[in-house]
């Protein structure tokens, strides 16, 4: 959770998925020569935490099933597919809606990048030019 924002809801799921996808992103960064051992260490650490969190959920659900089911083995093996799928679908739906709003907004601007984007690119270019990096690249 972000301090002050309650709950471990979709935000938690979002960051667990982000941690699971981070190694793939880092592979791309490595291919582009923009990675480092420190970055891989960080990605590995967060991946392990995410996997441990998923295991904790699995263990808890198994325990709940064990307690609530008539047949303990059946309870342990039961997997609440519907709630988990529903949560994932809700997350995807919300992110897609946000993306659609962005695309509509982008369309309204007729594909032109916003002023702040152009300004940001110019500032970054000036900095790199001051360092002589633009010539090298």
């Amino acid at each position, binding site marked *: 959770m972000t301090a002050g924002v309650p*709950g471990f809801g979709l935000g938690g799921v*979002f960051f667990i998925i982000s941690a699971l996808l*981070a190694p793939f992103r880092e592979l791309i960064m490595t291919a582009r020569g923009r990675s480092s051992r420190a970055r891989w260490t960080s990605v590995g*650490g967060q991946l392990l935490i995410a996997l441990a969190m998923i295991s904790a959920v699995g263990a808890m659900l198994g325990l709940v099933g064990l307690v609530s089911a008539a047949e303990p083995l059946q309870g342990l093996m039961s997997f609440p597919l519907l709630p988990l799928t529903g949560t994932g679908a809700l997350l995807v739906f919300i992110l897609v809606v946000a993306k659609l709003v962005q695309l509509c907004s982008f369309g309204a601007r007729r594909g032109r990048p916003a002023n702040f984007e152009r300004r940001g690119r110019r500032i970054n270019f000036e900095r790199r030019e001051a360092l002589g990096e633009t010539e090298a690249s």
Partner: protein
Amino acid sequence: LTTQDSQGPPARVGLTSARASVRGDGNELTVIVPAYNEAETVGETVRSLRDQTCPPAEIIVVDDCSSDDTAAVAEAAGAMVLRPPENTGSKAGAQTFALGSVRTELVMAVDADTTLASDAIELLLESFEDPEVAAACGSVVPRRVRTVWERGRYVEYLFAFGFYKRIQEHYGKPLIASGCFSAYRTDELRAMGGWSTRTMAEDMDLTWTIYARGQRVRFIPEAVCYPIEPHNLDFLSKQLRRWSHGFVQNVRFHWRSLLDLGYLRSMVTVAFWDALCASLAYVILLPALAIAIDRGILLAYLIDAPVVTVPVVVQASRRRELRRALVSLPSFFVLRIVNSVFMLSALWRELVLRRSLLVYEKGH
């Protein structure tokens, strides 16, 4: 006591002809410490800044018309003290008041009740070797962990800085450069008009503005600061009121620019969803279901306990504070219900009643 020259800021020195990278050098850094009645803590803050492995060129304490000995304590500790002609009304206002006196390439904001680990500045300044980085922030760990509120916040920070913020850093979008300890490029900060008072969360506002300008913010987990967190419900209420209203105000203010910032857009979208739906669930839905159906439903308040525990245990182990973290864990579940109440109230007032919070109430 020194007062800022009303003729405007002094000439800027130490700036290269163009914006360039800055190597980790305290000579390029000024620290601004806004203070209002902070005589008890500001001395320790200034000393911790002077004892850095990479001490700043200048420490400016803005005594925002305190009624106690804040100015004298700060000056005795070795800081330069500025005093505005009248109370600026907010932390952002006090910090921006001092910005005109900054003559270094980098500027840092540190709260008057916050101390830093001895290498915190050195670690943070390394971020600015990248010319695209406009701001950098570090980890936050409460200095005092005694009451239920401090313990709840301690767990929140272990979770947020041990898991969430590291992932945000990986994707290049830390959600907030924390206001209690962050560094900025002075020229960029001036170009943005300093710390804005248009929202109650000036740090979030500044961070999102930096992203909107196409620049980067870094999170350095090893750079640690130690603020004093609210120890009672009165102080906590003031802080949570500011934070919750500030979050909603920033979403209202920045939503158009957030749309084009992919990962940040996704983060804010799910955070907003959680702010609304988790709050409704904790404050209204679960108690209603417990009354209507079965009291056992109240166990749902703890349903994510194993998930919360994992990153907290990992981060506490890194800090060798495992026992303290485990003892503090139950307090987190109390704190988040209080968070929910304030978040729901902020959403209702800001979005439905359209009554924006405009008065900055000092907590911690």
